[in-house]
């Protein structure tokens, strides 16, 4: 997938932050457009919502919790070290999750937004990018996200309806992450 047809991070963020079928449709359509694929015809967005909740929200035990801590620690719990890493990253960017501690800071949607901020800061800087910000970006992608996004996406692939919207979005996320990982690889310590 070329740089031009990378999914928009905003749309990925909005998809994982969705609370209902309308949010999901809005975000998924933008993701599909950005990567040049078609949403399966006759998609029932309420059915997509059911699947989204089954995988990521609940109320039943979720096979793919969209939180870094669930995948990064030696055991499957939230609010662990990965959450603190995410929180500290946001703080370094002068940001914070509203009502810290209510929703774990390492929810995928927050992390994608942080990426958006990091990339935006790097892009707007004239001349050579600030080394510290670039290093933070590289670490966040290559270390933090690298620890949890691959197993998370694998869990989604195993559980999501084949050819469905969630599967489509997950592949878009995977493509974006692959690209992001490659583009920051050079900045990571060997």
């Amino acid at each position: 997938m070329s740089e031009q047809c990378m999914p928009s991070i905003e749309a990925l963020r909005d998809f994982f932050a969705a609370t209902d079928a309308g949010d999901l449709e809005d975000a998924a359509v933008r993701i599909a457009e950005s990567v040049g694929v078609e949403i399966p015809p006759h998609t029932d967005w309420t059915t997509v919502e059911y699947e989204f909740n089954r995988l990521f929200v609940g109320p039943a035990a979720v096979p793919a919790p969209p939180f870094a801590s669930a995948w990064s620690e030696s055991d499957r719990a939230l609010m662990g070290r990965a959450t603190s890493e995410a929180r500290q990253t946001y703080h370094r960017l002068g940001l914070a999750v509203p009502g810290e501690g209510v929703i774990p800071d390492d929810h995928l949607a927050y992390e994608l937004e942080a990426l958006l901020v990091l990339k935006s800061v790097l892009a707007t800087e004239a001349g050579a990018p600030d080394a510290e910000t670039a290093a933070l970006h590289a670490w966040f992608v290559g270390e933090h996200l690298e620890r949890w996004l691959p197993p998370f996406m694998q869990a989604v692939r195993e559980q999501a309806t084949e050819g469905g919207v969630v599967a489509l979005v997950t592949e878009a996320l995977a493509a974006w992450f692959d690209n992001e990982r490659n583009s920051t690889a050079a900045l990571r310590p060997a």
Partner: protein
Amino acid sequence: MSHTSSSLSRRQFLKGLSVAGAASLLPLRLLMPYSAQAATAFSEKDFQIFRNACPRNCYDTCSIKTYVKDGIVQFIEGAQESTFTAGGLCVKGYAYPRRVYSPDRIKYPMVQDGRRSGNWRRVSWDEAMDRISRKILELKEQDGNLLGLGLTKYSGNFGITNYGVEGMMSSLGYTTRFVGTPCWPAGIDAQNYDMGDMWCNDPEDMVKSRYVIIWGANPAWCSVHTMKYIMEAKRRGAKVVVIDPVFTQTAAKADVFWQPEASSDGALALGMARHILDLGMVDQDFVNANALGFEEFAAYLRENVTVEWAAGLSGIPAEQIREVAEEFATADPATIWIGYGMQRHTNGGASVRSVDALVAMTGNVGKEGGGARYGHLRTWGFNYHALIQKQPEGSVGFIGATGPKGEFDFTKGEAASYSDRTFNINKTAQGILDAKDPALRMLWVSCKNPFAQDFDRPKLEKAFDTLEMVVSVEQFFTETVANSDIVLPVTTLFEEWTVNVSYWHYWLGINEQAIKPMYETKSNIEIAAELSKKMNELAPGSCTFPQDIDTKDWLEKEFNQGIYDYFGIKHWTDLKNGPVKAKLASTAAWHDMTFGTPSGKYEFRSDLCAEHGHEALPKYKEGRKPYDEFRLLTPHTQFGLHSQFVNLDWMHEYNKEPFLYMHPDDAREKNIRDLDMVRVFNKVGELRVKVKLTRNVAPKSLVMYEAWFGRGNDFNVQNLVDDEAADMGAYKTGAPGVAIHGQFANVERV
């Protein structure tokens, strides 16, 4: 070389190296510089410390210290200030952070499009309350009352402010309540007939006992903190006898283990009593001065009971019965812990009365280190501010007699022209199916998981299917949630203010809010306030529950001078320094020999008991007749409290799947091998499960631990347990108990 450098301590040496950067001078390849800061040293100053109290239905009701950093619970430990908790928690307690931070928690209000469909959608609290309120108003309009709205709630959260759930129902009007308890009612009534209340010695005084009989309880799993007193008594020379149909971990610590035929406990106790009578070992001072009807009891024993008869019914050799009886009568003091398991029979109340009589006739009632220990509610004298709410003006309710709404109902005595309609909690399915004029159409479930705890699951599912709306308030996705239309996420103990006491020990502990409520969770009283807001928005005056509440203020409203005096504190905030114990005149229940019975004495003959349709004397009552080849026992598991905790990852680590346990001799006859998949079946239903063969269970019995739930497993023992009533319980808890262990089933390899 200077004197200073040669006297460096090891710690200073390391520090010195670091300062000198000496490591950089070495040809290192594998090791990297390390800053020896206090990263590994524990300091309380690094944490905010909160007081919590385990609100589960457990003897131990542990006082907890919660260590929070950056708004996140880092770990918890048992409070050292409580000599009962003594700094330690049980395996379930230590897993509490796994509950609050489980990715599987219920996080948002959600609605299900079709019960058991798994098709869930998120809704806002406002939308959830709107749907619920409109349904309540519809029932009220169509039925002319709110009796079509039912509440089933029990012991999922014993934090006192959680009685606001019952308060919420009252604030809506007169509703239908499922009353009674599946837990301990037969024994409660028995102790009330004998002594006038259920009141037990301080468990900490068990160290003084010279003889301890643990009868149908498994504290090694279900009250780990009490074990230390039993073991200390043993260390001081006491003999420990365990009586249980299963060879438990408690039994493994005993000097004597009896594995009697289940439900023969009354016969066993009476056989011992007869032998003590024959040997003239009765405490005459006690029975003459403090008891009523002993001579009639003695005559009953002489005419109807022999040791051989007891041996025949129980399977315990007569010689052993004589030996233990003599030892028990001789030891001073001697005590019996009457477990709840032994009264879950059709003769459970009668059996408890027989055991009480054994303790009383040997003069062990009212004695420190003695006692017929069952439970108590002496420390529960709160205001029940959250519970006591007024019905809206003009509410119409049920006309007719109503009893207590459970052992924790402290609101009795208020006369009203209308009341709530009450159904037996142990026959929930039948109650729903039988409800008429009006039918039960809507059910609110909180602090309870009926599909795991209520009996005859196949019937319960049918009954739920007749309901028009089911609302569950939960932390995790249970089978009950799967059978609901709306689920509301409720807070864990770390996210709410409340206060807790025990029905066993005498400690009082505060439960502070240690972290912000996660996701969109709310406490039960906050949920009630939300409902009230919406009800009044749609129909002003339709709900009296306060709409804006501060949960800390509501905690404060539960305290009164009586509580302060009993526990010797000036204010509830004193509890922030740690739990406190009641100031007891004696560790012995009934120490002043003033009993709560009509006669004021210990009643071997209880006319009240006879009035209630039972025998006046603690006579033998036969248990339930077998209706299938094996006795089925479904006792508590080590890794859960009823259905709570069993789904957590730490528990699954040790308790990966449920099993049936059966005796190898029986298995051989059925051509069943270890770890085979089997089908257990009876008139109620069936389940499939792997079998483990063990001689820890008696021949002709099938044992499955009560609950297991998690992904990909529909194990549920209530597919096999029916709702047969126990003999007692209606007097004090509003409904009879249930014969959980008076069950039978068959098994085959699949």
